């Protein structure tokens, strides 16, 4: 019977070509959209790799009119000491990088990162200049070696810590500790390997990240990186606090700094709030995509429904004939479903062939299984749509008495 149906489809191919083309493009559209959605959701399985809880981004703003930089620097120092000594705070860390939970591109080295044997393209490497306190502040887990410390002051090579994925990329399973890597022409020594991090946020993949010790802070832990304008020369000041802070902590600290240091303000932004904002900004386009996919879904649904309704109505007389020669209603009904499923397969197979190229070409830089899931999901959606669209008109067609069906043209 299936061969019979296939013959019929091939013979009527010209008539059905538009339907096949519609099915093909619908599959491709669903595949694209689902790849992005599944890809984003798939990325949530990787841990973030750093602790954002009880962590604040601190901005210090100078409102005082002064040209005396020594006074400014002294006040900065005093503010930092005051904040660090404030009840409930633990430690400051500094990072020079794009900020956490920012979807925009991160800071890359200007040249490829090289080990003895491997060069990792600079665009794939996330660089973070970090102070000695960052591992503790971000709660990074050291898997091998150690984090930066004062003992690095004596090192002739600048110390770096690699995330596990970058270490594997550069050194494989070999020991990386003590190895030299070429970072923008500087010979840096690997002192540690830490867990992978998702600097850009929950919905991204872990980045290949290199932490480089900020050498400017050897003797003056907080001051040298401050600039005259009051900004931090691209450095992010991270304040780790206790878990049991009162609700008024941010407001109280901000007010007290303003009172004790006239002409200077601090602004504390909770990393949890930054993350929530990031999640909202990530889901906003996903919701838009969802609306697009819903519109597409309805469009395909109505399009297919109309075409199939017309197609089946055109064949009412044939249904009558088939019933006259011995087909039961169920057989006729199943025949239409079979036909449409075969037709759908004819439309989807070229789509799958096209979709399979994506993991090979690595166009969206996603894991192969994301494409596979997207392909399967897109195919299932199309099959389900076709099933929905074919059930009603075929059901209606088989409800007519064969005698009447035979006379419908």
């Amino acid at each position, binding site marked *: 019977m299936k061969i019979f149906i296939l013959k019929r489809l091939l013979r009527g191919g010209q008539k059905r070509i538009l339907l096949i083309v519609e099915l093909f493009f619908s599959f491709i559209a669903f595949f694209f959209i689902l790849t992005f959605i599944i890809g984003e959701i798939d990325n949530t399985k990787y841990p973030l790799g750093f602790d954002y809880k009880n962590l604040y981004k601190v901005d210090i703003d100078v409102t005082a009119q002064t040209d005396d930089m020594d006074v400014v620097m002294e006040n900065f120092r005093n503010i930092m000491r005051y904040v660090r000594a404030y009840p409930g705070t633990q430690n400051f860390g500094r990072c020079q990088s794009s900020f956490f939970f920012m979807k925009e591109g991160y800071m890359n080295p200007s040249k490829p990162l090289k080990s003895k044997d491997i060069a990792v393209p600079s665009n794939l490497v996330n660089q973070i200049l970090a102070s000695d306190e960052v591992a503790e502040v971000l709660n990074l887990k050291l898997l091998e070696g150690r984090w930066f410390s004062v003992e690095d002051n004596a090192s002739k090579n600048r110390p770096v810590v690699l995330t596990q994925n970058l270490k594997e990329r550069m050194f494989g399973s070999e020991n990386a500790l003590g190895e030299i890597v070429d970072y923008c022409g500087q010979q840096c020594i690997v002192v540690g390997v830490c867990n992978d991090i998702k600097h850009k946020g929950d919905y991204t993949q872990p980045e290949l990240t290199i932490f480089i010790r900020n050498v400017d802070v050897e003797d003056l832990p907080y001051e040298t990186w401050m600039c005259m304008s009051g900004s931090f020369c691209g450095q992010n000041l991270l304040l780790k606090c206790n878990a049991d802070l009162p609700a008024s902590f941010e407001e109280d600290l901000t007010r007290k700094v303003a009172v004790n240091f006239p002409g200077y303000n601090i602004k504390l932004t909770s990393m949890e709030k930054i993350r929530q904002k990031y999640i909202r900004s990530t889901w906003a386009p996903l919701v838009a995509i969802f609306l697009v996919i819903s519109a597409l879904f309805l469009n395909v649904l109505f399009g297919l429904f109309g075409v199939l309704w017309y197609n089946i109505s055109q064949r009412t007389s044939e249904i009558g004939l088939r*019933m*006259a020669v011995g087909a039961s209603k169920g057989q006729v009904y199943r025949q239409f479903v079979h036909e449409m499923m075969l037709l759908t397969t004819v439309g989807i197979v070229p789509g799958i062939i096209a979709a399979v190229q994506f993991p090979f070409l690595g166009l969206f830089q996603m894991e192969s299984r994301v494409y596979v899931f997207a392909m399967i999901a897109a195919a299932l959606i199309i099959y389900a749509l076709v099933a929905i669209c074919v059930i009603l008109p075929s059901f209606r067609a088989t409800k007519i008495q064969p005698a009447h069906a035979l006379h419908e043209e």
Partner: protein
Amino acid sequence: MITLKNLEKVYQTDEIETVALSNINLEIEKGEFVSVMGPSGCGKSTLLNMVGLLDVPTKGRLTIDSNEVEEWPDKKLAQFRNRKLGFIFQSFHLINDLPVLDNVELPLLYRKGISGKERSKRALEALKKVGLSARTKHYPSQLSGGQKQRVAIARAIVGRPDIILADEPTGNLDSKMGGEIMEILQNLNKNENTTILMVTHDEQLAKRTNRIVHLFDGMQVN
């Protein structure tokens, strides 16, 4: 073989009630060739549809091959049509997308236990009987009206039915072609003892059958 007792068919719409058949009593013996005549709209085709189990009578009793078929479910009716009945229509009702051989095989597709090879063999045999074995790969659009009707006859006999129901089988053909088709039907009736109930407008053709049933306004007028 076929018994109709007080058969009635009424088509009911929201506004109009149309009596298509009223109080039809008919008995057709096995191997009989009966023609049904009457003016257009008198219920000839409706009668054929009732006997062919393609429509449901409003009242009365229909017995075919000692089976009272009124209460049968769809599946059983379909099987019965497939095994016992063969249909020939005025407008042939061939599927244009399928070649002749596949069109003839159609009833066998719905019969369990017949392989594709066996289907083709039987279809070819049926086509030989109607003199069309050389056209198996042609499509209906490549055939003349007479040839199409022969294909339809082959399709009707491929399942070796006991009864053939022919609804104006020569209605769309010229007299020569009509004569040829009639000859095929007569041969089937004589040689294979097939019971045939044929609706026709052509009195000459009707005279070549064993018996003529006349209908007028849905009623038997014999």
